[in-house]
């Protein structure tokens, strides 16, 4: 899922500084699960902004609403009236949610309340880690199901580099060396021979390097149009 974290309150105050009516919009999907932008966080953020702006002598109307998914029109349509009445919409969705609101309500001013961090998973309560870089050309089949693009600091395809020590990456003792993990797993599964093959330069065109990406499924599209 998409992992995000809240922006500091001072930054939020700056983002809404010019508005009298603020609508905080939470999202019920990924950012709810990572405790960054669900209904609970939306309520807390709205209350904090009410208090903070009041203390600053610049009291604002701050209300909140949470939709099931900010990244789908049908859920956004349910809050059309509230969005219209707000001077600024503070989205607690990921970057996709912010842009979805902008696209659906082009006359509204929308600002982000979160920093969208990465695609990952919770390792334990309160700890999240990156797992996927959405490169568009998955190589997990070559690396024992451990992604060196997302998890090796240098995204090496022919790792490990010389900076692997005691299982961690030289950039930070808290970062496990992805290639040590790959090596250990392939070793355990008796597939180390895979690592002897030279992996050619990657086609990064399917990643962000090919420009903004889009998928068109004509089969689904036609079905939708005919339906």
């Amino acid at each position, binding site marked *: 899922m998409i992992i995000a974290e809240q922006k500091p309150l001072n930054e939020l105050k700056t983002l809404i500084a010019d508005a009298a009516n603020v609508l905080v919009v939470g999202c019920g999907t990924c950012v709810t699960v990572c405790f960054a932008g669900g209904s609970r966080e939306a309520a807390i953020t709205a209350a904090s902004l009410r208090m903070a702006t009041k203390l600053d002598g610049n009291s604002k109307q701050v209300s909140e609403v949470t939709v099931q998914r900010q990244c789908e029109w049908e859920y956004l349509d349910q809050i059309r009236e509230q969005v219209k009445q707000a001077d600024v919409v503070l989205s607690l969705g990921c970057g996709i949610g912010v842009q979805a609101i902008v696209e659906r309500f082009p006359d509204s001013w929308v600002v982000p309340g979160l920093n969208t961090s990465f695609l990952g998973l919770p390792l334990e309560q309160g700890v999240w880690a990156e797992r996927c870089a959405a490169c568009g050309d998955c190589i997990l089949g070559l690396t024992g199901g451990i992604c060196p693009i997302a998890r090796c600091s*240098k995204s090496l395809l*022919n*790792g490990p580099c*010389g*900076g692997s020590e005691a299982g961690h990456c*030289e950039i930070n003792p808290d970062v496990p060396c992805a290639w040590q993990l790959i*090596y250990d797993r392939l070793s355990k599964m008796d597939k180390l021979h895979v*690592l002897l093959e*030279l*992996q050619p330069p990657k086609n990064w065109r399917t990643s962000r390097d090919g420009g903004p990406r889009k998928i068109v499924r004509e089969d689904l599209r036609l079905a939708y149009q005919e339906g």
Partner: protein
Amino acid sequence: MTATLSKNGYLSGSNLERVLRLGHFAVTGELGPPQSADGEVIRKKADLLRGYVDAVNITDNQTAIVRMSSIGAGSILVQAGLEPVVQMTCRDRNRLAIQSDLLGAYALGMRNLLCLTGDHQTFGNHPTAKNVFDIDSIQLVKLVADMRDERVFQCGDAFKGPEPRFFIGAAAAPFADPIDFRPYRLAKKVKAGASFIQTQLVYDVPAFAAFMEKVRHLGVHKQTYILAGVGPLKSPAMARYMKNNVPGILVPDELIERMEAAGAPWAGKGKDELTKEDKKARAGAWQGEGIQICIELIQRLRQIDGVAGVHIMAIEWEEAVKPIVEGAGLYPRPVVKAQVAEAEA
């Protein structure tokens, strides 16, 4: 070797290649470009190394700190009559920039190339920079070998003019984790086209001998020239720092004790009790011992089957190279007849 030799037998015709091909025990040095636009620094360091090494590595923004480019500094070295081994990392350039820079480097007279992935930018003085890592060091070796042997760019387009014919090197970290994979990774670099290998600093000779045994078992020592990395210790603190903080470097306690013993006459005194002269004398004693240790390391490494030379890393202490090379009995350096690679012949 996967690379096809040209008719006269040379891939690049560089001095380093000739020295190695003729069976001499090679000596390479290292030169760190300045954090400024001062070319005089390169010329002064070159004077310290001239005649004592067969080629000089020019680092490429080592430890991710911005310095004069390795190709710019390499060009000054060529003008000064020394042969550079240009280091090229994958951190700062994508495949377009890498190939373009290599064409320029070759046109400027550079003939040896060491292909590296590069230190991560978070270590350096621009930690907020975006990194590249479009390709990795092994892919870089293959790219440069393909330019030379297949006469193609990475995209597959053929050269219409002369191709760059580099003597291609790569690095090896014999003691980094996972240690069992290290000989295989070296073999992978050779398979990609590395004609010479320069290793991470070696202080633990038995550990390196064990590594070399595995390398010989794979037959890799017959497909590439392996230069063992050595460097003079400057102080006991430096030795301990490397032992404890630098991944992939083993420093035996015995060497740390030797360094400490060299400074023993001053050991009883507290920091404040040491005069400037004391400190200078102690530094001199440490440096003398560091150089002596380095000489002994070279002599022991030379006995290991498959070691074709040494790579002396004395960055910011280039003065040490002369006594090390002389002390190890590697002076004077062989003068070998100039040979050019086939494409130029």
